[in-house]
């Protein structure tokens, strides 16, 4: 068959999988899933040219291919290395990788403020997850952290550069989704910052996707800032017919009660936007910022939240209520009240407000 796609056999952490030629090691590992998939802070499969920068996805190539089984001398960025037939990759089974990754996590957290308690990204922050899974409990950095002034880049997006890890994803969004990029990286090295030319407003129908691709809380939605913690909101899948060309209209609404707190694109288990008919499901700013009523949307159902988010903790999906067993063991009879403790003892009288007692409660406090 002429159009048969060539597949390569690749072994990652002792698990062998067949993938089409041209697949990156990272994507092959994601097909296996679980812990085998290296973390990725800058790579974004829907953004061309992204990846290779954060170095969290470094893996060891123990054998290059069947034809040339020599190991690669350095650790390689799995997001930008394509598989070869017979390649043997070590991720979590390699001490070298674990050591290097711990180093990278430390570097990324070096200047990152630990302001998670007031950061809107908390709960869905990739750096939080990364630090939790691969980081150390403390930092060895003892110098003042790098800070930037907060910058206002338009009516919808707040740039908080201090939190940025320079993954470059937002610049790729601007390059590939919008006609004209008005923001980019200024300066270099440690002082490099994302900015616009002379604080110009980023004004484009698809600029809001920058918020979705930002792995940390550097770019946040102004319409949602400080309104709620993400884990208190309930994500539901919804859609509407959107007239903006290029907008898929498929979103996640983050509700509390009937109130729509924010609208985002739908994300897959790797934190990237989902694809529809082979195209990334980016959404326009109208859907994202202006349609904040449930009546604007057709709600499909509860969103299945990705594997490592606190949002999914104890909520909705797979939630099982404990069974009430008292009636069962008593053969269907209701329990019988033997006595009311408050008839016998004045301690813990429900009429006395504990909060009004000065200091710890004593029996004295309950004596009438």
């Amino acid at each position, binding site marked *: 068959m002429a159009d048969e796609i060539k597949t390569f056999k690749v072994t990652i952490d002792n698990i062998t999988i067949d993938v089409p030629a041209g697949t990156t090691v990272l994507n092959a590992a994601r097909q296996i899933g679980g812990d085998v998939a290296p973390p990725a802070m800058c790579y974004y499969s829907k953004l061309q040219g992204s*990846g*290779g*920068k*954060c*170095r*969290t996805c*470094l893996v060891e190539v123990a054998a290059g291919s069947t034809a040339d089984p020599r190991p690669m001398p*350095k*650790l390689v*960025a799995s997001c*930008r290395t394509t598989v070869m037939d017979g390649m043997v990759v070590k991720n979590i089974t390699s001490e070298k990788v674990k*050591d*290097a990754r711990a*180093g*990278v996590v*430390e*570097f*990324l957290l*070096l*200047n990152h403020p630990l302001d998670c308690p007031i950061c809107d990204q908390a709960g869905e922050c990739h750096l939080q997850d990364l630090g939790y899974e691969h980081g150390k409990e403390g930092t*060895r*950095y003892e*110098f003042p952290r790098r800070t930037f002034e907060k910058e206002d880049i338009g009516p919808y997006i707040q740039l908080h550069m201090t939190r940025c*890890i*320079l993954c*470059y994803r937002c610049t790729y969004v601007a390059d590939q989704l919008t006609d004209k990029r008005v923001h*980019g*990286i200024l*300066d*270099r*090295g*440690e*002082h*490099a910052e994302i900015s616009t030319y002379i604080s110009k407003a980023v004004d484009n129908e698809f600029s809001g996707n920058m918020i979705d691709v930002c792995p940390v809380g550097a770019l946040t939605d102004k319409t949602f800032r400080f309104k709620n913690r993400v884990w208190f909101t309930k994500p539901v899948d919804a859609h509407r017919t959107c007239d903006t060309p290029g907008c898929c209209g498929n979103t996640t609404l983050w509700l509390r009660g009937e109130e729509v707190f924010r609208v985002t694109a739908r994300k897959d288990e790797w934190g990237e936007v989902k694809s529809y008919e082979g195209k990334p499901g980016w959404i326009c700013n109208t859907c994202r910022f202006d349609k904040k009523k449930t009546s604007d949307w057709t709600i499909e159902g509860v969103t299945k939240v990705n594997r490592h988010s606190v949002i999914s903790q104890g909520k909705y999906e797979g939630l099982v209520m404990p069974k009430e067993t008292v009636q069962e063991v008593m053969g269907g009879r209701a329990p019988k009240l033997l006595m009311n403790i408050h008839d016998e003892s004045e301690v813990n009288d429900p009429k006395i407000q504990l909060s009004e007692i000065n200091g710890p409660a004593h029996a004295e406090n309950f004596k009438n």
Partner: protein
Amino acid sequence: MAKKLLLDKAHVPGIRSYEVYRKEGGYRSVEKAFRLTPAEIVEEVKLSGLRGRGGAGFPTGMKWSFLAKPEGVPRYLVCNADESEPGTFKDRYLMEFIPHLLIEGMIVASFALGSNVSYIYIRGEYAWIADILENAIDEAKQNGWVGKNILGTGFNFELYVQRGAGAYICGEETALIESLEGKRGNPRIKPPFPAVKGLWDCPTVVNNVETLAAVVPIINEGGEAYAKIGVGKSTGTKLISACGNINKPGIYEIDMTISVEDFIFSDEYCGGIPNGKRLKACIPGGSSVPILPANLLLTTAKGEKRMMNYESLSDGGFATGSMMGSGGFIVLDEDQCIVRNTMTLARFYHHESCGQCSPCREGTGWMERILKKIESGKGEMKDIDLLWDIQRKIEGNTICPLGDAAAWPVAAAIRHFRDEFEWHVQHPDKCLTENFGLRHYADPIHVAVTA
């Protein structure tokens, strides 16, 4: 007196101008090259054993033969004149005094590689040299060496000078290409290599100034004759830019058969150390290569005399050796403080990191701050181990070699001069006013006798 191939005419008055250069035998190699086929020129360069003079020392002929040659796609030759490595200034000398030598080499190389448009990417700080080069290119053009149908061979060739904006990182070949394309000078992720996808996604060769200049004597004298100069895989001549605590700093052309000791102390070269001071340490190949204490610099760990060539300088690996690098030979006498020196280098790499990948962006600044802390007498013992750990986590984990270049000097300083760092920690007040001095760094090394 070693044979000079590049600088033998450097002192002829007016050599910068076309007339004098031509009278002294310039552009002969172009005439000769046009009688050969491009493949034959590449073969000649391969035969010469010429190694890239920019720092990595990769065989030039091999690099040229890797160039992809798809039909209908232009190929480019780019000359890397972004010489920014602290301690290295050889390319500046070549371009400033004999600009036609580079142009001549580039015509031959471009003909061999099939590049009809070539570029010289020069660092912004060399502003006046860019003017010199442009003048020289104009002269070459007027005399029919550059332009359409050169010497009636049908070979069209244009040469442009592009000024950088002053960034060390743009000396990395892929960052240079990005900058040349008008973008931010961030290194690209390899593969694809420039030989396949370089400038404007076309096959590209990036060579150092000195490498391209060396093509001229190779063609004139033949690859085989060139290979006879030097020893082993270090063929031909190498420009060394000597600086630091020496009597005669400057550019020297050596044929790589001279010992390091002779190079520093002979009157023909550096002429010894001024003020009767003793040699403490040396960075033999530009700021990124490991620093060596006097004893390991002059003799290898095996007890052999260390020579000024690629193999001998790297003898013993990073544990007891260093690298030829770009030939930036920095000599430090007994009054120099290694901690301060390392801090200065760390500050440079911190300043020059492009900020694209995290280990280098965050790690270089961290290293500088710790070194500053130790230097100012506020250091703790754990800081030395921490430095070691940071450099270890940067090295090899970055996109481009700048991370390695930042890590190596710190690693080597701690490896060989740990007691000087510890002295700084233990004497927080004294280290501000006094120097650690030479101590045992020039003592003969004990060589284990093998049975």
